[in-house]
């Protein structure tokens, strides 16, 4: 397999992946490429946080997380400023609202997770249970985003939930 055959390919937003059956076997969709990059980054974060977990409470975790993303914030601000002319204005405020809400919900979720352990929940129970949060995402995505999945993807989802539980137990 040549390296360039695994180059990520951009798919049109919201239209799925348009490729022939043959080329689909050889090319990596862009969404899959970025998902795999996310797994690598979060997988490494999981290792680093194993070392860092001693003595960090929910609040310090939030503060140190923010310190960690500060350089990214500066870089992304610069990138957004550069690309502002080419971006469409329609729906921007709503998009910003959803992005901001993502941060707030994610941050409060992190604190609730820590608080669950402060209130007596064992990590061996709290972690695998909360790690099943994609179930909520799938449910909401099917209802509100009207996403439809293939049979094999449904099987994959079922296996993913089992795997998430086992890996976090």
């Amino acid at each position: 397999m040549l390296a360039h055959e695994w180059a990520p390919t951009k798919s049109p937003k919201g239209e799925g992946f348009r490729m022939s059956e043959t080329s689909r076997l050889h090319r990596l969709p862009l969404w899959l490429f970025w998902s795999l990059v996310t797994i690598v980054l979060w997988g490494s974060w999981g290792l680093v946080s194993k070392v860092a977990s001693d003595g960090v409470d929910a609040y310090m975790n939030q503060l140190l997380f923010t310190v960690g993303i500060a350089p990214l914030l500066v870089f992304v601000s610069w990138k957004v400023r550069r690309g502002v002319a080419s971006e469409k204005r329609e729906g921007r405020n709503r998009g910003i609202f959803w992005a901001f809400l993502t941060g707030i919900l994610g941050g409060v979720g992190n604190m609730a997770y820590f608080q669950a352990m402060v209130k007596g929940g064992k990590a061996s129970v709290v972690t695998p249970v909360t790690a099943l949060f994609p179930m909520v995402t799938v449910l909401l995505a099917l209802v509100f985003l009207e996403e439809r999945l293939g049979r094999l993807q449904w099987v994959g989802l079922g296996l993913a939930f089992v795997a998430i539980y086992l890996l976090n137990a």
Partner: protein
Amino acid sequence: MAWLGFAILALVLWGITGVTQKLSTNRISSERSFLWFCWAMVALSAVVVVAARPHWGLGTTVVVCSVAGGALNGLGAWTSFKALESGGKASIVISLISLFPLLTVMLAVVLLHERLTWMQMAGAVVAIAAAILLSLESAPPKVGA
């Protein structure tokens, strides 16, 4: 059982973020989405500094690892926005990237010399199968079908 309430709260809030991420990238770029995600974190941290009492006395290693962890986690948040922006379905992308403990477990074995439990071994095998199935996209509908 107060812990259970907090655990369920975390589960629900994290679950909702998968959908709000998609709603965001349907309207604005992944860069702008991530930028406002970061600002939300800054706002939350400001509230924490004012209203809560964080435990400041931490060792250098813990602080360095926590900050590095924040950067890695933040970069991951950005790439997850990019995955959704690139046409990935929220239900698939979020489920797929939630398999990241597979890599953590593998790294812990290699770098920290931890031993795999039977549960983790089984989880790793199932996770790989799940990732392959999740990444299979159904063929686009045939014209005239």
